[in-house]
């Protein structure tokens, strides 16, 4: 008796609210449309950089001179660093690496050249005095086969 009552109740509900189903293809199409709209909104919320109104120099690979210096920094070898770099380079390096006390990662991110001067950009990651991990940027200037400055 109760089963019969439940069945009748379900039949009534089904008659009152017919199931609305979109076909599979339409659902996928609407979902894809939604994704495209979402991407458009996200792009609008974070626009690309404005166009560069100036000339742009072409990129160069990592110069071996700065690569050698970076290896010494990563090895934490102060003695060799003092032999490879003059006081001006060391001073620039100290300012560029501030506040890092210990460097555990260095990555060459790009370089460019002009009239024999090469600028090689690195991102150094390490620990500061408080133990926090930081990343800083440093640009090595290479000329005449040696590193002549760091910014």
């Amino acid at each position: 008796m109760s089963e019969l009552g439940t069945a009748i109740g379900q039949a009534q509900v089904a008659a009152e609210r017919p199931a609305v189903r979109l076909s599979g293809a339409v659902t996928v199409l609407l979902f894809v449309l939604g994704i495209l709209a979402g991407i458009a909104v996200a792009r609008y919320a974070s626009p690309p950089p404005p166009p560069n109104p100036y000339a742009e120099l072409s990129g160069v690979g990592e110069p071996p001179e700065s690569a050698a210096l970076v290896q010494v920094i990563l090895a934490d070898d102060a003695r060799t660093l003092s032999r490879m770099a003059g006081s001006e380079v060391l001073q620039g390096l100290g300012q560029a690496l501030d506040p890092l006390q210990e460097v555990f990662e260095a990555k060459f991110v790009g370089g460019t050249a002009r009239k024999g001067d090469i600028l090689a950009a690195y991102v150094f990651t390490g620990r500061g005095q408080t133990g926090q991990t930081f990343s800083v940027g440093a640009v090595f200037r290479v000329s005449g086969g040696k590193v002549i400055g760091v910014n």
Partner: protein
Amino acid sequence: MVGKAIRTALATVLVGGLFGYLVTSLGGPLVEELSVFGTRESTEARTYMIGVLENEPETLASLTPKGDIVSRAMQYLQSDEAQGQWTPLSLTYLGGSAKGGLQVHMYAIELRSASGREQFIPLALTLSNGKVIRRE
């Protein structure tokens, strides 16, 4: 019946939109942090660099954390003094990184002074929450 079909369709578009927005806005920075395809140049860093080269103190002020009145006045003074001192020749993005909310972006700029002397200078910017907190 038609009303319900429209509601279902709208809900599908909405779910898709939310998915697309989240993947683009959260996935992009995550991919950059993992350095899968390198770091994309930030809009704020490029705008700041153009502000430096065009000598626009208002732009620079809007992209740096608000400092005290004296440092802001100094920035305007330096900008006034630099007016017409040099002409920018090129601006090249070298690269950068994004880690834990901090971004580092590096540039090479070429300038010609009023006396005709050319300079080739690097500049490293550190950004936090879209503001330049360090300029080296």
